[in-house]
């Protein structure tokens, strides 16, 4: 009956889709019927056949020995990487010395004035408060070290990203070549390439900066290319008709028109670079990240938080200021007030110099020790209380340790055993079917090849273990994220309250919540899942809420006029119409969960995450790099399986 009452177009669309899916699946079944018996006859084993693996231990071990033996003599290092490394050290040092010379007051005033010029008085006040808070927490010097590192890393990332983006934006061929490269760079977990970078550059700042650039450059490249491609055709034609050369066209029309995307790219790059600040501390980057990492060693959540808060504050300030720069109307300032704009900047510069000199003369260059606030103790007390009272023995609902135990036995174990118990070819078939139904044969092929590569690398079993954790974490994230997102979309007040919470969760270094997570859920895979959920939740909530809010108001209005209850409105109008946003949330959830698999390795998640951490800790390139590559393959596979075709085509447009 339902099909009869439903309006015709709604039936036909899924009908067609279903028809096409059935055809794809039938074709796949046919191929499987031919290939599976063959494969099974040749390599009859449940798990990936040993005959189809390649052992990289020896070549990778040799490569790492060669690097260590030749690092201080081979020309490649003396005249190649050596210069890169030196340049990075010089630049970071220069910025650091300037920051120190300005003193705490000079830096705070300069930051506030920049925020004022770019984004107005409110953000200026916020910026000043944020910087003062960093000092109050006793983190002034580490904050400056991180800032120096960030300035250099962001500048290099933006330069690299802009060049790649220009190439991809101007040439279709470059775009085709670069897109998979950028895709890979983005799903690559940062920990996986710390090891090769360290091997070449050694522990310290150069390696940290370069690792950050690899991580932070892709969004800049993507958004630059997007901006250039999205430039208004009519404007370009008009410029062309005026006889401008290609270079002039680029400089006077295409780049200015792409301003918004460029600034968004800068914003994204800064965020990514900051999130790398802590991970890079593992290889000796110093600064705030190192403080967080050292606090972790003495199981001191309070001290970790004291170093984590400045990172959050820096992130929020930089996000709002660059965001405001992107939203601002570029014409307004320059055109009718060129002079006043310049005068404003000059006044800001002068004020900074005056303050810096005054503080220097007063001999108050360093942050006064007396002005620090010790938050570690109360925080630790709070954490202790929480774990004392929630860990076990809570009446009726049971303690968090019990939940973790049940989650492990009832969800994670069956999922892992199920995946590992499947014959290898059936896993490939499932991946192919999912990817093909949701995308094209190309996406299916990529997904299957990525999965097969995992087998070839010889880490089939641990990869499926990791996959089971990722699936469980994504499921939990989506349930919580959709529920919160729907609530946020329906209540403005709730969304306002939620925003700072999401900011904190999104930018707080993951190392800070490692210990609370273990204290609540014990050691094992359950805390790994919990850490992943905490990390991935904010993005899912944001995308869901935004998607629901953008649903055509007319559709909602008509549903309301037909007397739909609010539950019906959500189920039958908002959710179906927001489907693309929800799919994007799913995709982002998967990518983000995978990004913290390594953090899971630090709390007992085992599998690939542990292998990567092991590789880094033991300088074992073979274990670390292979596990890292397997995570990348898992990421590619999951990305393809959850990425609907519509988004792909839209992105390329």
């Amino acid at each position, binding site marked *: 009956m339902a099909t009869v009452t439903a309006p015709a177009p709604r039936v036909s669309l899924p009908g067609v889709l279903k028809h096409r899916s059935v055809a794809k699946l039938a074709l796949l079944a046919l191929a499987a019927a031919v290939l599976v018996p063959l494969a099974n006859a040749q390599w009859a084993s449940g798990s990936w056949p040993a005959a189809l693996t390649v052992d990289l231990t020896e070549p990778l071990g040799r490569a790492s020995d060669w690097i260590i033996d030749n690092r*201080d003599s081979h020309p490649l290092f003396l005249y190649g990487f050596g210069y890169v490394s030196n340049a990075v050290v010089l630049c970071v040092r220069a910025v650091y010395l300037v920051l120190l010379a300005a003193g705490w007051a000079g830096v705070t005033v300069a930051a506030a004035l920049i925020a004022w010029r770019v984004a107005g008085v409110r953000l200026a006040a916020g910026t000043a408060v944020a910087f003062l808070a960093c000092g109050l927490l006793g983190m002034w010097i580490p904050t400056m070290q991180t800032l120096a590192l960030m300035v250099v890393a962001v500048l290099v990332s933006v330069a690299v990203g802009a060049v790649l983006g220009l190439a991809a934006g101007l040439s279709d061929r470059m775009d085709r070549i670069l897109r998979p490269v950028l895709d890979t760079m983005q799903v690559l977990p940062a920990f996986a390439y710390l090891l090769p970078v360290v091997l070449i*550059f050694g522990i310290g700042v*150069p390696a940290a900066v370069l690792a950050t650039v690899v991580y932070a450059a892709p969004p800049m490249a993507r958004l630059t290319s997007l901006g250039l491609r999205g430039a208004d055709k009519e404007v370009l034609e008009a410029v062309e008709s005026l006889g401008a050369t290609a270079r002039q066209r680029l400089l006077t029309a295409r780049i200015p028109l792409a301003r918004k995307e460029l600034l968004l790219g800068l914003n994204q790059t800064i965020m990514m670079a900051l999130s790398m600040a802590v991970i890079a501390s593992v290889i000796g980057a110093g600064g705030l990240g190192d403080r967080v*990492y*050292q606090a972790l060693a003495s199981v001191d959540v309070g001290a970790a938080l004291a170093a984590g808060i400045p990172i959050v504050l820096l992130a929020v300030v930089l996000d709002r200021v660059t965001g405001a720069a992107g939203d601002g109307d570029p014409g307004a300032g320059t055109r009718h007030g060129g002079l006043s704009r310049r005068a404003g900047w000059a006044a800001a510069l002068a004020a900074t110099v005056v303050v810096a000199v005054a503080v220097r003369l007063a001999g108050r260059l360093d942050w006064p020790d007396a002005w620090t606030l010790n938050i570690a103790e109360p925080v630790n007390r709070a954490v202790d209380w929480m*774990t004392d009272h929630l*860990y076990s023995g809570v009446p009726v609902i049971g303690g968090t340790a019990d939940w973790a135990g049940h989650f492990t036995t009832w969800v994670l174990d069956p999922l892992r055993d199920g995946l590992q118990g499947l014959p290898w070819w059936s896993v490939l078939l499932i991946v192919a079917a999912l990817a093909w139904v949701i995308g094209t044969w190309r996406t299916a092929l990529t997904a299957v090849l990525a999965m097969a590569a995992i087998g070839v690398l010889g880490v089939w079993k641990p990869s499926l273990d990791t996959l089971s954790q990722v699936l469980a974490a994504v499921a939990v994230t989506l349930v919580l994220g959709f529920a919160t997102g729907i609530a946020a979309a329906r209540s403005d007040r709730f969304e306002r309250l939620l925003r700072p919470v999401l900011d904190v969760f999104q930018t707080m270094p993951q190392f800070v919540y490692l210990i609370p997570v273990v204290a609540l859920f014990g050691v*094992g895979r359950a805390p790994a899942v919990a850490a992943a959920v905490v990390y991935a939740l904010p993005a899912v909530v944001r995308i869901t809420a935004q998607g629901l809010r953008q649903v055509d108001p007319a559709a909602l209005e008509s549903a309301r006029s037909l007397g739909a209850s609010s539950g019906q409105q959500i189920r039958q109008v908002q959710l179906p119409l927001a489907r693309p946003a929800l799919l994007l949330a799913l995709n982002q959830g998967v990518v983000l969960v995978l990004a913290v698999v390594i953090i899971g390795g630090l709390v007992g998640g085992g599998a690939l995450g542990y292998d990567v951490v092991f590789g880094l800790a033991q*300088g074992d390139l073979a274990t670390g790099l292979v596990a890292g590559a397997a995570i990348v393959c898992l990421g590619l596979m999951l990305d393809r399986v959850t990425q609907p075709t519509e988004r792909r085509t839209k992105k390329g447009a």
Partner: protein
Amino acid sequence: MRIRTTATVAGASALLLLTGCGAADMTKQASPFANAQGAKSLTLSVQSWVGAQANVAVAQYLLEHELGYRVDTVQVDEVPAWDALSQGRVDAILEDWGHPEQEQRYVKDKKTITPGGDLGVTGHIGWFVPTYFAKQHPDVTNWKNLNKYAAQFATAESGGKGQLMDGSPSYVTNDKALVNNLDLDFQVVFAGSEAAQITQMRQFAKEKKPFLTYWYAPQWLFKKVPMTEVKLPAYKEGCDADPEKVACGYPHTPLQKYLNADFAKDGGKAAAFLKKFRWTTEDQNEVSLAIADQKMTPEEAAKQWVDGHASKWKAWLS
């Protein structure tokens, strides 16, 4: 355009001049944060366990307050720390638990690292159960009886077997081979970091639950969670040579200091001081406990020890 090209060329040549026209030797490259504002400085590597933090805290305190150095610390895992030491990124490791492969490569072959003598503390790795459990079941302290208790050590993670908890991936461990070769009905669960391992042990102890864990002495946690060692087959020289066939316990290791070779030669007072630095297990535990349990900053904890043990450290300075 001309101007911009000139600027680029000028910039590039300035960079070349700054970096020196010859070879750029990465092995002689200090941290950009070192020696800021004209201070004499050196860099010490800190490992992730608190005992290592205690060594560094006291050394740092004395270097800063008695010898006028500025000390930077970086936290690095053990093996990468050797690598950093050979490159001069750090000047000294104060507590090493024995890395024969690295010793061969850097100390004997490449001669970029020099031994800095004993730390004075002897380290020992073993398997431990909480003392409250060992008192109830005295026979648990021999590996031969462990299988009897496997069910009591089981957790959700150990898949029906008993759980043997291992810690950070950077630590030396033969536990997987041991469980296998001694036919134990146990599953090694890697906590993945010492922080996670300690947190879990404290949670178990709060509830007086039995647990079996890889652990090591000297360690401050023994004061908070008293633990008794489980006897493993005795260690004999070379019984752990083949990692697959290990069936013996762990050795007692006198912990060592190592210095970067150039620093040992030209490091002046700081290098001489670090070579003489030598204290006892009790000293180290005192400082560790202040850091990890009383949550003092490493500096406060070091100051407290330094104030109470003047005679000891005065000898390191002479």
